């Protein structure tokens, strides 16, 4: 008998593929919502993002190791995340560029899934923002569900809309109501405007243990708190805090980037701290930066601290376990 099998001889049965599939499933729900508002174009953009990232992963795997990579589905999830941060009227090459960048530049060369110091989707979105800011923030005007779908071809004739984030940057209150902003009836990114649906997806992902609730809540709490303490709007601190939450893809980024357990810290209090730090960086960029969507930049910056806390400063946090343990 060849003894290569080792204990435990029963396994929980949750595979890495299942984790990525859960994320993809949640994103497909957002694409479905986007279809209801804008038609097939955002769906095609989302699928293109996922497919380009997946293709890049497969191609790199075949070129470098001459075999198919172990977990291509995670790459598809990164590409889809980048695509969901684009406007529904974006050109088709934009999600392709973002998806390929996320996998080929920010993931595989830097250690692969879970080991890259930066979230690949955050890197992909940041790359697109820096290089193609014009296309990134050219949002179409919000539509009523199932009416006036966007054209699949040229979108130059589509009426432009103004996102709440860009209005707030000018220090003016958005024209839409908070309820409209929560239900996707405001100009914004494909997946990021359906805040209530994203919240439902978050519950699903938390239940499936695909994301950390502590990271999500600490980031969102930080955003609200800073918006409350230093309001940009004259309508009062509470409304200002709520608008900060509902604009600039904050909820989407919280769930799919900040909460992603592969790139978050493994220690509870570090997650809370880094969630608040991400919020602080994000709000500083909103206040003083050039772009209206900056949450993924904040994620990218704070990601760099995770290995520091998890690997180099373990003695600061590991002692709790050690003290409780008895030999």
């Amino acid at each position, binding site marked *: *008998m060849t003894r290569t099998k080792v204990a435990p001889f*029963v396994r929980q049965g949750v595979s890495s593929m299942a984790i990525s599939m859960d994320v993809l499933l949640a994103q497909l729900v957002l694409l479905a919502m986007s279809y209801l508002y804008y038609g097939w174009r955002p769906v095609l953009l989302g699928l293109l993002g996922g497919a380009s990232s997946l293709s890049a992963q497969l191609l790199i795997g075949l070129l470098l190791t001459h075999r198919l990579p172990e977990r291509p589905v995670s790459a598809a999830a990164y590409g889809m995340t980048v695509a969901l941060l684009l406007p529904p009227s974006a050109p088709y090459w934009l999600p392709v560029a973002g998806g390929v960048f996320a996998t080929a530049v920010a993931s595989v060369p830097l250690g692969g*899934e879970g*080991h890259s110091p930066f979230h690949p989707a955050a890197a992909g979105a940041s790359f697109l923002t820096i290089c193609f800011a014009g296309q990134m923030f050219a949002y179409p005007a919000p539509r009523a569900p199932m009416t006036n779908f966007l054209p699949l071809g040229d979108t130059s004739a589509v009426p432009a809309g103004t996102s709440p984030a860009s209005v707030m940057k000018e220090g003016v209150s958005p024209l839409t109501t908070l309820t409209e902003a929560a239900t996707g009836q405001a100009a914004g990114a494909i997946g990021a405007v359906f805040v209530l649906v994203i919240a439902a997806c978050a519950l699903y992902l938390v239940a499936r243990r695909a994301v950390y609730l502590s990271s999500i809540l600490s980031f969102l709490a930080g955003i609200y708190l800073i918006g409350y303490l230093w309001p940009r709007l004259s309508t009062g601190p509470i409304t200002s805090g709520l608008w900060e939450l509902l604009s600039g893809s904050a909820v989407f980024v919280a769930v799919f980037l900040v909460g992603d357990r592969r790139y*978050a810290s493994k220690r509870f209090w570090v997650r809370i701290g880094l969630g608040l730090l991400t919020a602080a960086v994000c709000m500083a960029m909103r206040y003083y930066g050039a772009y209206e969507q900056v949450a993924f930049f904040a994620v990218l910056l704070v990601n760099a601290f995770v290995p520091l806390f998890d690997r180099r400063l373990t003695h600061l946090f590991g002692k709790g*376990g050690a003290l409780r343990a008895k030999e």
Partner: protein
Amino acid sequence: MTIISRRGVYLPSHKKETLRKPIEAAGLPDRLAVPLFIYGETDNPCVPSVCEDDRVRRYDTVGVFASGFHAVAPADGTVREVREIRGLPYLLLEVDEEQGEPSPLPSADPKTVLEKEIFEMANRAGVTAYGRPLSEVLDTYKKKGVTCLWADAICEQPYSTARIELLRTRGDEVAAGLRLAARAVGAQAAGVLISAFCARGLPEQVDGLAVEKVLGKYPVQERAREELAQSQGELLDAGALLALYEAVALGKGCVEALVTVNGNCVAAPKNIWVTNGTPVNDLFDVCGLTEEPSCFLLGDALTGRLADRQEPVALGVDTVLAFVTDRIKRQACINCGRCMERCPRKLYPTEIARALEAGEDEHLLRLHPQYCTGCGVCSYVCPVGINLTAKTKRAARRVRRLLEEEELAEARRSLPNAAPEDKGNAVPALGAFARDDLFDPVGCEAEEEQVEFWKKGSPSSKGKKKSKAKETRKPASKQPVKKTAAAERKDGKGTAKGKKAGKGEKK
């Protein structure tokens, strides 16, 4: 007792297949391989007190340990040889076809027996608990000032039901054993602890002792022990308590144990009484197999170790499993953190494994792998199938060795006449831990070589594969059995280094 914790896991249960089923006896095989060591203390094997071709009767002493603990013959038969298998000594006994009535060991009335006599009788009968002589365990509890003793019938792993069935079928004797143990320890109170998931059909009291249910995630036994320790309580294996009662009241040696036999290719899973040293194969003759297993396990699914078909089942093993399993396709870690989230000791297994592989000793020391209990939760939850438990245990051995070396270096530095090189900060490289790996409850990852327990042609050698291990046959003449290498090591002679040096001198 309810233990609420975010850490740990709820395991799937396969207990229904063996719970409340009739208990059978495996019967005596033609040959037995009696271990001359105790599982928890493999570094201190006993010196055999019998010779080749000696006749022994059931309950005769075949070896005495330094602590006074006896290795007991499990059946009437003839000693064939003492053989070292994987560095540990076994006494191979050819069992007589007709077994005589065993002469009982010294016994006493359980109500009037003295404390000291309980310790002596447990030693003489060869009763063990948690891989140590029962007398040593009781002595430890006594020194700790344990005030409440609990019979441990928790059976928290997926397959094991032996202790619960002991309680169900022989609860009164277990309770009597518990009273004896409590008297030996000086405990004023006693009770029985069972898992709440297996409590159906069990009484609220066993012979006047309360049955407490433990509810919580695996590993609940370890946490229950910690909870009990706060009120000076301790656990004691129900099987050992039964053996203690039989030793004291009936003069019986501890030569049998109730073992759960199960697995995904076992035709009729059941609990069976197994004589110490019975080959694994014989258990499946009783229970039957639906297809050829790909592995046998001594122990339950989370902490068991792989065994050969011919390997003897020693006392202390309460579960033997046979599985047809596919090899798990392992992938690279995705850093999901599930292992850390679930670890009952709050360790960071994936980082420990990384630091071990990278040789980052300083970092490894900060991660405290030495606190790992080997429960297997990290490997169980890992979505990419990495065997983190084995890696953490390997890291723990490395850290223990590092700490020992550090202590030694510190002591050397503190000496006034220490040599300059001793005052340096060097930590010596670590050697291999072959023996530790062998008895690692989660096994080692490397392919192990097949070992042969029985000579060819013996009735128990059926189904055996070709051996790679070299067999050293001794002459059949009647001569005292030589000390095994393990025993010599214990005496400080014949170490591996010494043998090499000896060879060198001859050259």
